[in-house]
């Protein structure tokens, strides 16, 4: 009908000029389940996590041999809630967390420029991870409540031997540093 065509072209025109990834939730057609997906071929910029170990694209398709490489991981969020997820070998722990709605921030999008994806790794699996590179250690040094089993989630690549790994998100409290260190003024 004319009105929906008008809305559709208006929405796509907005997107063309504003160059924003389409936020379907604000479009009246979508809300009324009347969207036919016709937005004149506009493609949303895909959010690719550029990790230091390779680019991780969302929506990987699975194939028979990859189904054998299933890795079970449990995230324990800041409230102590256990969130078991099934992952594939080669996936990245930060990306996986986002996929399953786990509250793990990744401010710098896996480019080793922040420590917001700081997690504690279950001790028996911590030993199986490869040594952190120097840049990861530098960022970990800035993370509050650093522990022996701390790692950055964006640097953890899942392998079959990590099956059963538990990643605990540090509880955020007012006292950020366990050794009482207070960061100095900028």
């Amino acid at each position, binding site marked *: 009908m004319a009105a929906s065509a008008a809305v559709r072209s208006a929405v796509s025109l907005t997107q063309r000029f504003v160059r924003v990834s389409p936020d379907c939730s604000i479009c009246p057609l979508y809300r*009324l389940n009347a969207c036919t997906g016709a937005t004149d071929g506009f493609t949303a910029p895909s959010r690719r996590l550029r990790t230091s170990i390779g680019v991780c694209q969302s929506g990987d398709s699975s194939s028979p041999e990859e189904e054998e490489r299933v890795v079970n991981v449990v995230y324990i969020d800041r409230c102590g809630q256990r969130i078991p997820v099934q992952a594939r070998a080669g996936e990245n722990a930060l990306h996986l967390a986002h996929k399953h709605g786990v509250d793990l921030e990744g401010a710098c999008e896996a480019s080793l420029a*922040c*420590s917001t994806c700081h997690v504690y790794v279950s001790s028996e699996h911590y030993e199986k991870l490869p040594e952190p590179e*120097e840049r990861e250690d530098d960022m970990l040094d800035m993370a*509050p409540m650093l522990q022996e089993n701390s790692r950055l989630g964006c640097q953890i690549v899942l392998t079959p031997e990590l099956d059963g790994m538990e990643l605990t998100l540090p509880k955020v409290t007012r006292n950020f540093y366990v050794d*009482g260190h207070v*960061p100095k003024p900028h």
Partner: protein
Amino acid sequence: MSYNKKHVSVTLPGVRGLSSSSGPRVCIVGGGPAGFYTAQQLLKARQDAAVDVYERLPVPFGLVRFGVAPDHPEVKNVINTFTQTAQHERCSFHGNVNVGKDVTIDELRQAYHAVVLSYGAEGNRSMGIPGEDLPGVFSAKDFVGWYNGLPSNKELRPDLSCETAVILGQGNVALDVARILLAPVEMLKETDITQNALKALAGSKVRRVLIVGRRGPLQIACTIKELREMVNLPNSRADMLPADFEGIAEALKDLPRPRKRLTELMMKAAKEGGDDKAEKCWGFRFFRSPVEVIAGADGKRATGIRLALNKLEGSGESARAEVTGQMEDVDCGLIISSIGYKSIPIDPAVPFDPRRAIVPNEMGRVQDTAGLYCSGWVKRGPTGVIATTMNDSFDTARVLIQDMEAGKLDLSVNKPGAQAITALLQTRGVRTVLFSQWEKINAEEEKRGKFLGKPREKLLDVDEMLKIWTDARFMSFENCSFKRKLCWILCFMHLFTKYRLYQ
């Protein structure tokens, strides 16, 4: 097509008020990391909350845009997270609004259930020494603002024709300034550093940068990433005083990991120095406090700085610097004071602690003022990295949600929110910039940058920023042509009547 007959609220981008939400309305003052992280948590925790972010500049993101060094683009990735928050249907951004001047805190408190102050620290601590106002002396905040395109610093024009620069303070900002002064121009010209700063640095004669601190190597405030970048600077060598490191090696084993790794790297740099043929050099100078800026013969500009030598009392983080009475003069033509940012009071209605330069608060609840909260540097002081501010903002959001759920905020009263404030601002002649309009400015900056081989060329002028969005052909509803407006109106009349959305 099947139609869903459940009640839906329809919102247009940039036009609030068509939504029929009657949930809590929260106002956030400040569009930097603290503001956006607080907004993010509020939106996630309450599906009925509407959050409006007010920002003084037409452009959002605060220090992520104006503070993070141009050669740290990955740190700026967090802008994508903030963009998602700003584009959320229950969030709206209002730029070019000076809270305290264009609209008061009391007016905001009347229009919203809760107001969160996240306006950061726009002032700087002064050294409090004679000669501080001489040409050639700058605060790090202004210098960083200059190379990062902060509109109020665009006329800074630092004179870079001297050989030696002295930076007071040894935090990450001091190291950023040192690195930008000594980095090869080939590297800088591919960043989003402003074009005029790039030109000035290309013609810079500065070859030696001393980074001076009151206390010793074990009290240095910078972090290892920034130190490593100094050590790895091309065509530079480290030049430190062995005397400053006496007794440090013995203390290493008892240090917590972050401090230990940092100190080890510093000692290695002090010992190895670097390539003697390197044209540039940098170094820390410890146990020194500035006492006077020395002016040249004509008394018109800085030509040196007098430093008092200290000794350390106590150890660890709480060690104090005590004067010895000895002095040292250093010749230099550029002095940058990097001893801390400082928050300033925004509005007489808001309590302010002038000694600590923060808004007095208890876990984010502003003292003695119901419905007023704070997050970020204005709450805890100007310390920490983005991750610190993130955790802090999440804390404030949590406390606010708790207060909502405990009934400490009266949510039964309907508050008009942005509708009322936008109307008020219009009567005062203030042109607010919506997020979609910032995206227009953003696109223009990226376009100009592409032409120069940079990720963006920042607009330096607020008037120019405002002009960009008014030139746009299709922006918000208010700005589209009559034909389009009619089209929208007819469309929604049709939708409203067909699906009975007026109930």
